[in-house]
């Protein structure tokens, strides 16, 4: 029995939707709206690892009773568990690269992308809700790191300080992705892998969110990569699961920026 708790096919939520489509694996989908805090309801599947996952909000996979969270490791679980086309490079050094990209996307690119998307779409949406009720909902969130992320969105100032900081954090990972995709068709090397699924899910919104940083002119190799991805039948199948018709506007708080500066 395989169940996936997911939202719109964007960012972390898109990753397992796409990987399962690539593998051709059937599953029961449970669509939930994380901006209505449905993931904190008592009947939502949770364990220690899913509550404390560092990307804060994201999909949850339940496989024969086992709860699997944290989107890159979920991709690796899917790739290692299910039949279908392999999504893992066979060569150890390509797998090393795959793991390294997973780390960079999670800890460096991911937080910046989520921050930009939240600033553009989620903050205005939260502002349109009754403030007292929203604050009361946020006040009960555990753990503290997830509560703080939501509280920070509600308290966000009108200036663009946070967005500017997020844009500057994007520069290095984007530069590295661009260089890698200039040297090989896929991030791990010669083979399409979960590293491509992982990066695509986070990069897809950037031509809209940060057009001066990711676009035909500044990052031609990333642009070509996004086109190659959009041409894949599995990407189309995953995108077709959108209920809003605007998946690229669906954002939740992501991993925090490095606490060291």
């Amino acid at each position, binding site marked *: 029995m395989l169940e996936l708790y997911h939202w719109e096919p964007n960012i972390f939520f898109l990753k397992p939707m796409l990987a399962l489509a690539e593998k051709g694996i059937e599953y029961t989908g449970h669509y939930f709206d994380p901006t209505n805090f449905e993931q904190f309801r008592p009947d939502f599947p949770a364990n220690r690892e899913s509550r404390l996952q*560092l990307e804060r909000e994201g999909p949850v996979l339940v496989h024969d009773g086992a709860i699997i969270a944290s989107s890159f490791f979920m991709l*690796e*679980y899917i790739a290692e568990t299910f039949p279908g086309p392999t999504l893992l490079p066979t060569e*150890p050094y390509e*797998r090393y690269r795959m*793991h*390294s990209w997973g780390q960079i996307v999670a800890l460096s690119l991911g937080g910046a992308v989520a921050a930009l998307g939240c600033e553009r779409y989620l903050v205005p949406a939260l502002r349109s809700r009754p403030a007292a009720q929203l604050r009361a909902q946020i006040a009960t969130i555990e753990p503290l790191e997830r509560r703080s992320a939501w509280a920070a969105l509600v308290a966000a100032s009108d200036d663009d300080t946070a967005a500017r900081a997020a844009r500057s954090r994007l520069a*290095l990972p984007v530069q590295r992705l661009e260089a890698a995709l200039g040297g090989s068709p896929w991030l791990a090397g010669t083979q399409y892998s979960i590293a491509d699924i992982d990066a695509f899910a986070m990069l897809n919104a950037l031509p809209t969110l940060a057009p001066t940083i990711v676009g035909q002119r500044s990052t031609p190799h990333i642009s070509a990569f996004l086109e190659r991805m959009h041409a894949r039948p599995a990407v189309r199948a995953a995108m077709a699961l959108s209920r809003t018709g605007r998946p690229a506007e669906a954002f939740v708080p992501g991993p925090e920026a490095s*606490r060291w500066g």
Partner: protein
Amino acid sequence: MVTLYHWEPNANSGKPMLTLAEKGVGYESHYLDLLKFDQHQPEYLRINPDGTIPALVHGDRVLTESTPMMEYIDEAFPGPPLRPTDPRARWQMRWWMRFFDAYFAPSLSMIGWSVFIGPAARQRDPAELRAAVERIPLESRRIAWRKALFNEFSEEELTESRRRVVFATGVLEAHLSQHPYICGEAYSLGDINGFNLGYALPLSQPERCNDQKTPHIMEWLRKIYERPATRATWAKGRTQMAARVGMLERAAAGPKRDGGDA
């Protein structure tokens, strides 16, 4: 042919050192003194332009991310497997390594840098230190070093780091009270990662990590310290920092006997 550029058996440097030792893979060792900024010298930047340690060179391949490096070592070399075969247990191992790397370690090392690395490095000429910081290639590392060297951690940051260390210690104790090792019954890369992070917790956090409050963490650390690969790896340490591992020696169970073996 394997070459490892590393500092003390501690934190990120210790991860590939202990993994290679467990696999029984010999390597050419290049010790870089982190406190003398050897890792930002031109000779090393030719190996790793980011100026971070460790770096593993295997043939014409260069690996610079310590946690993915451990998985590579386990895959590329013969020797006892250090990852479970069950995907669920592997997922757990990876989840914990990320929790150690990205939640526990940054907070613990912020405290460590403020009380140990910073004061140790401040023994040197301030102008020389400032020049050394300017040579650091990655901006994020430059900021971290500046904070450590010139003691620019805010009280708020340190308070939050202390809170997280206490919280993460509790999460780890709860986990190890249910499982002897990070991903169940078998020793894995998750334990190697966690040991490098936490071997000195009983000394640096004596109020929080001790036989009364965290008996399962203590037993786990001692079990790992008893492994020949751990002993051999920590014996490569050159400073007092690595020598702290000695506190994991089990106290003699009873009074020592006189005379030889029966």
